[in-house]
């Protein structure tokens, strides 16, 4: 049984909605409660919108993971955009790049259980976020 999805390319705005609703379906399949399904969907929406706004193009991979006996969801958001110059700053609440949009990344970290980010100007940004049942 393989619930894992193919990476979802984020190139158009509509892809944000596709990634968000697929995250919800997968979270439900894993057995997350409604509130947690929504939290995962919101995290995916933030990450996909970040790609769309800042990198213009990237992909979101959502998969079911198992850590020992614990099941969960892993979201990988990857883009080849300009990268985040100051990750610490981007992880600060209410930090905005000037167009009124915050990065939403601290929010994603709180919505999920585990959060990793790496970014550089050559390889773009990669965020891995996990939530366990």
């Amino acid at each position, binding site marked *: 049984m393989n619930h894992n999805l193919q990476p979802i390319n984020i190139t*158009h*705005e*509509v892809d*944000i*909605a596709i990634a*968000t*609703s697929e995250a919800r379906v997968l979270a439900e399949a894993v057995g997350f409660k*409604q*509130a947690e*399904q*929504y*939290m995962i*969907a*919101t995290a995916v*929406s*933030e990450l996909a*919108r970040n790609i769309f706004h800042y990198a213009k193009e990237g992909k979101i991979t959502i998969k079911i993971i198992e850590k020992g006996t614990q099941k969960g969801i892993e979201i990988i958001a990857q883009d080849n955009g300009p990268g985040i110059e100051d990750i610490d700053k981007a992880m600060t*609440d*209410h930090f905005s790049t000037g167009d*009124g*949009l*915050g990065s*939403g990344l*601290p*929010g994603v970290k*709180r*919505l999920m259980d585990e959060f990793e980010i790496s970014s550089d100007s050559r390889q773009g940004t990669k965020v891995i976020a996990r939530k366990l049942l």
Partner: protein
Amino acid sequence: MKGKNYLSKVVMNIIQGCLVVPIHGELYDESVLQIQRDVLEKIKNTGIKKVIIDLSGANVIDSFLGQVISDTVKMASMLGATTVLTGFKPEVVVSLIDLDFDFGDIQTAITLEDGFHKLQSRLTDEEIEDADDETTEAIEELEEPEEEEDES
């Protein structure tokens, strides 16, 4: 802009003197901003003073959508209209807190009906002024006969 065809037009109705704006389904940058423009335009054209933005049908409220809604409420207020947000679900509220989203002193209600009550019970500035005048008159009326009674 690509994919304009997926933009859904929100149908806004004026019910009991309130502009009701239902937000549903998936929302895109452009459609959210279009809703914002439409609401402000409607307030300007109709002079309506009460707005309800109903979020019960929204799939996901992320920080972008939250920001646009919050901005819309502030802009409506500058145009003299009071807005109540309705239709928050528990999971939405939990996620908004995690996103560190602050709706500040924006008024909210759980159901559309509660939203109506909140707006109907809330008086507009003009009504408050009228009410103040009436109260003053009533107090004067009350005071006068009392004085007469005292004299007798």
